[in-house]
């Protein structure tokens, strides 16, 4: 009965996620008690404030859903993409600058923002392609290249902003996205959620998706079955880079409008995406839900600080513990079989 086993699998995933969340919050309560804060009030503020404003929640989740997808697609192919960070940077920067330049040249708001999104996507995709190409053709470890590219891109974007694209009034900011080119309301979220749905369909029903999953599950068998691993690696990395780049461009065009010269608004979103990809079980729909959940916790964390003085970094600890708890799903099987045996 395939339906029944599928149903059981979903139930199992939900139970594992729920237990991991409980473990994460239990550890948070312990830390809060030790550091002298009121755990119940902190957690209630975290949830009530973090998830109160749906529009803010959707907007804040755009970049991490993108980097979550950028982690998950290569992960299914057996690659570890730790480069979501730089793919997001370059997408955000390219998106910002091309929107700005096209708008100033033509005065067309829609044309400029569409150009911004397309060029941000292409830039991110090219960044992903470099990693995939070096891994496939030169067997250079993708983790090494991605880490080096993260730092290279960090300084490259800073150089370009500081040397050419500083705002004339706010000298610690880049130029701003022209007001009429900005993407309104939650359209940005709808677009990235649409990309997630599309990714889900491609992974599940297309031959490309099938080959990505086979490469990840059993690379040797994939080669024997005639799949071209090199091509799969390069394609998976390029697509994921493109999605992270689009996420960066969307975030600039619809939420932050400018990049500050310490990159504080976009730093760390790629690393967070790894946690979100894992929490979403590398399932694109799961990544959207995990992205919304984690963004809510992070936003709520800022309110916790305002109300109680507890540092917002506590949210990072909670997310980290949840991720660790999720890693050891075998523990739950072990517990269940122990309980059954009595």
């Amino acid at each position: 009965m395939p339906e029944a086993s599928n149903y059981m699998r979903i139930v199992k995933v939900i139970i594992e996620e729920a237990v991991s969340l409980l473990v994460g919050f239990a550890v948070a309560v312990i830390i809060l008690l030790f550091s002298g804060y009121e755990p119940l009030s902190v957690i209630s503020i975290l949830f009530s404030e973090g998830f109160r404003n749906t529009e803010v929640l959707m907007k804040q989740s755009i970049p991490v859903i993108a980097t979550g997808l950028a982690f998950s697609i290569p992960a299914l192919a057996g690659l570890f993409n730790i480069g979501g960070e730089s793919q997001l940077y370059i997408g955000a920067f390219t998106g910002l600058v091309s929107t700005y330049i096209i708008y100033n040249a033509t005065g067309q708001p829609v044309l400029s923002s569409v150009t911004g999104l397309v060029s941000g996507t292409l830039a991110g995709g090219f960044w992903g392609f470099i990693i995939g190409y070096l891994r496939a053709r030169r067997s250079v470890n993708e983790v090494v290249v991605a880490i080096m590219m993260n730092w290279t891109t960090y300084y490259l974007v800073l150089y370009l902003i500081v040397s050419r694209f500083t705002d004339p009034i706010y000298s610690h900011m880049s130029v701003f996205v022209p007001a009429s080119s900005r993407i309104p309301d939650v359209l940005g979220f709808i677009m990235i959620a649409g990309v997630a749905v599309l990714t889900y369909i491609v992974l599940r029903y297309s031959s490309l998706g099938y080959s990505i999953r086979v490469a990840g599950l059993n690379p040797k068998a994939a080669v024997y079955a005639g799949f071209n691993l090199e091509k799969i690696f390069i394609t998976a990395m390029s697509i994921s880079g493109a999605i992270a780049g689009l996420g960066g461009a969307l975030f600039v065009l619809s939420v932050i409008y400018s990049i500050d010269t310490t990159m504080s608004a976009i730093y760390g979103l790629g690393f967070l995406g790894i946690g979100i990809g894992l929490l979403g079980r590398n399932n694109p729909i799961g990544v959207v839900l995990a992205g919304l959940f984690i963004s809510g916790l992070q936003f709520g964390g800022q309110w916790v600080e305002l109300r109680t003085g507890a540092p917002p970094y506590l949210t990072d600890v909670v997310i980290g513990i949840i991720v660790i708890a999720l890693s050891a799903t075998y523990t739950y099987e072990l517990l269940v079989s122990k309980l059954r045996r009595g």
Partner: protein
Amino acid sequence: MIDFLIALIENTLYSATVVLLGALGAIINEKSGVVNIGVEGVFILSAFSTVYFTLASGNLAIGILLALVVSGLAGLIHGLISIYLRGDQVIIGVGFNMVAAGLTIVMMVTTWGDYSQTPQIQKLQGLQFTIGGKVFIIPLFSIVAILVGLAEWFILEKTKYGLVLKACGDEPRAAEAMGINVFRTRLLATVLGAVVMGLGGVFLSAEWFGNYTKATTAGRGFIALANEAFSNWNPAMAIAGALLFGFFEALSISLPIQLQSMLGRQFTAETYLFKMMPYVATIIVITMVMKKIRMPRALGKPYIKE
């Protein structure tokens, strides 16, 4: 010119030492078959603990010792979850890095009420030489790191213990048949590996910066992982890799200073271009020298007894 050279060599040693200790720890881990991408997290915990316990006890030696204990405990937790509970080793590392980063800042705020940095401690003094009237410092931990690297290479390649460790990482089933306890060997390796990584964190605050800030580790744990892959899991090559990266990072600091005084003008945005150097150089070097990767064959796979 002599100033330039001294600064270049000193900065090379400082930068290389952390990257080397992190890679050496990770090699011990991974030769036994357990991936640990939590090097950054261990650096963070151990650099913070050094300052925290030194200030609490008033004694640097106690601070260093307890920081190493904390690192070992971090390795123990990683080992227990990944070996006995068969957790996904990469995921544990990701989660661990997040916990370490968040937890240390929370403790910083609750202990000193400061989000950005801890108070200073009395730093270790390196070996001082005078060359042509200029003082030249060799950090103590650079010597420690190179000695650990050579010892690790010797143990792995020339002794029975190295053979046992590698057997667990390559062919755990065969190792078990030979009477080796794979679980226990792997657990020992994760603890020992984390302690060696912890030395890197200790060096950061005890000898280099003298305090802990959010920027102390600055992704060096990930550079250490890159060095590990670059070295092809060979401790002797890791020494070379660390010095190479360290040299380019030192150059990225010293070169703009030298050029500014030669050209007689101040760099502004260009400093960011110089900062890209070590990372770009690493990509180029690794692309050129990369041969077939030879990582331990059972790396990352939980060992399941029959």
